[in-house]
């Protein structure tokens, strides 16, 4: 499936798969051939050892919540959340037993628990000045 609308990632190299079909979008990672660590998105050098022997991988869509907080006040700067601020969860999501990723959380704030299963959720955040849809991500409750 493709759309007429051009799409871009909120950060270049953050995702694996075609942005045309959100079902095919996953978080991307850079796996280091030297130390085996995985960095988030496309990186120039391994965040652990600095090696440039990196291969691009797609991270799994399932994760579990390692820790979280609830952001109770509108974050400063160019925050693109709802015009009327609503408190939301922010957490560190463990994926594939190899990486933990900082991410906004979609479940109701009162339902958040450390260890809860979560699922990757790519979405259209906004349309940029060139008319392209900007794809961002969050994690929702597994099964939703």
């Amino acid at each position, binding site marked *: 499936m493709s759309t007429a609308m051009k799409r871009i990632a*909120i950060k270049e190299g953050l995702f694996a798969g075609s942005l045309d079909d959100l079902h095919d979008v996953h978080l991307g990672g850079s796996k280091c051939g030297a130390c085996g660590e995985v960095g988030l998105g496309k990186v120039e050098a391994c965040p652990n050892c600095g090696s440039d022997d990196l291969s691009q991988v797609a991270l799994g869509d399932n994760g579990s919540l390692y820790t979280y*907080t*609830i952001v109770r006040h509108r*974050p400063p700067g160019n925050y693109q959340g709802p015009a009327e601020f609503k408190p939301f969860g922010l957490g560190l999501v463990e994926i594939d*037993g190899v990486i933990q*990723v*900082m991410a906004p959380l979609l479940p109701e704030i009162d339902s958040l628990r450390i260890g809860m299963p979560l699922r990757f959720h790519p979405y259209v955040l906004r349309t940029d000045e060139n008319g392209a849809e900007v794809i961002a991500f969050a994690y929702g409750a597994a099964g939703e």
Partner: protein
Amino acid sequence: MSNVYIIGSGYHPFGRFDKSYQQIGSEAAAAALSDAGVEWRDIQAAYMARMYLPATSGARILRCLGATDISVIDIEAACASGGAALLQGMLTIQAGAADLVLVAGTEKMPRGFMDPSMIYSPWQVELGMSMNPAYWSMRAMRHMHEYGTTHEQIAMVAYKNHLNSVHNPMAMYRKEFSMEQILNSQLVCDPIRLLEICAPNDGAAAVVLASERKVRELGAQAIKIAGIAHSISRYSSDFRCPAESMSATMDNVGPTGVTAERAYAVAGFGAEDIDCFEVQDTDAFCEIEIYEELGLCPVGEGGRLVEDGHTRIGGSHPVNMSGGLISKGEPVGASHLGQIVELVAQLRGTCGPRQVEGAKTALGHVLGAGGNCAITILQK
């Protein structure tokens, strides 16, 4: 390495003032010079810690004391800027390049959450991942989950520090708050509440460093710098801002642990031989984690350490006698030097109601963005 001493200290109170940063900074520098009994024209090099001020702030501030032709260098290492500046000052003397050095920190900051563009990537700002307290809170939440640390124990840190601040003229808030007031204050990022975090503000602090030769020549009352270390966090050791991702398998020692180990090695003694501490309580939980990483107690027992009263003035390991950043506020460039002003006063025995009796050794610790950490150990 030759010994380096602090022979004078001074500050401008921390708070919010209708004054320029040049006035705030130069008043602190003048106070330190006066305390040391030396003149500005005697100073052979100067370092100015600052984060939010414009380029060449050090030169612009110190020119207020008279335009000499010495080296004046601005230093920035986030919340650890003051420690990085102190380290450079010490090394300058140890290298034999100067006998008298001024090290100062000055800041003037806007109210509210810090400007996220200084620390976070634009995409993180768009998604609301750009609030410093969120990252501290996530650490607190995990610690509570793993070790059973409680909301009450976190609040006890804020209670203790607010109580200590009452007698400190440097502090912005000099008010005691009850446990109920703290636990009922507004949630900022769960589990951290408004009376449990520090505020960015204005302030300055300064010290005069001298070589052993200069101390003898002046006959100065001197406090020895036993050790200074500065580091940034190792991979996957810290999820303080602005973390994007961590390893799920590696659990490296955090920046406080790494820096403490280095500072203890230089000093030749460790936590058990240190009489009083000033540490980075940007939030109340942070202090609990720092107890553990400095080695005041085993990992997981920081909550019990404060609950049992060990970190009060009069306890076995007094921490943040000044009231900490929770009471003083955090003028980032000035915060570590503000700690040093307090610790020098503790070692001189001039702290009045907040004095740690017989203190002979002291440690100052700062920690911030990028895992920037600095520790200074002083000895009478």
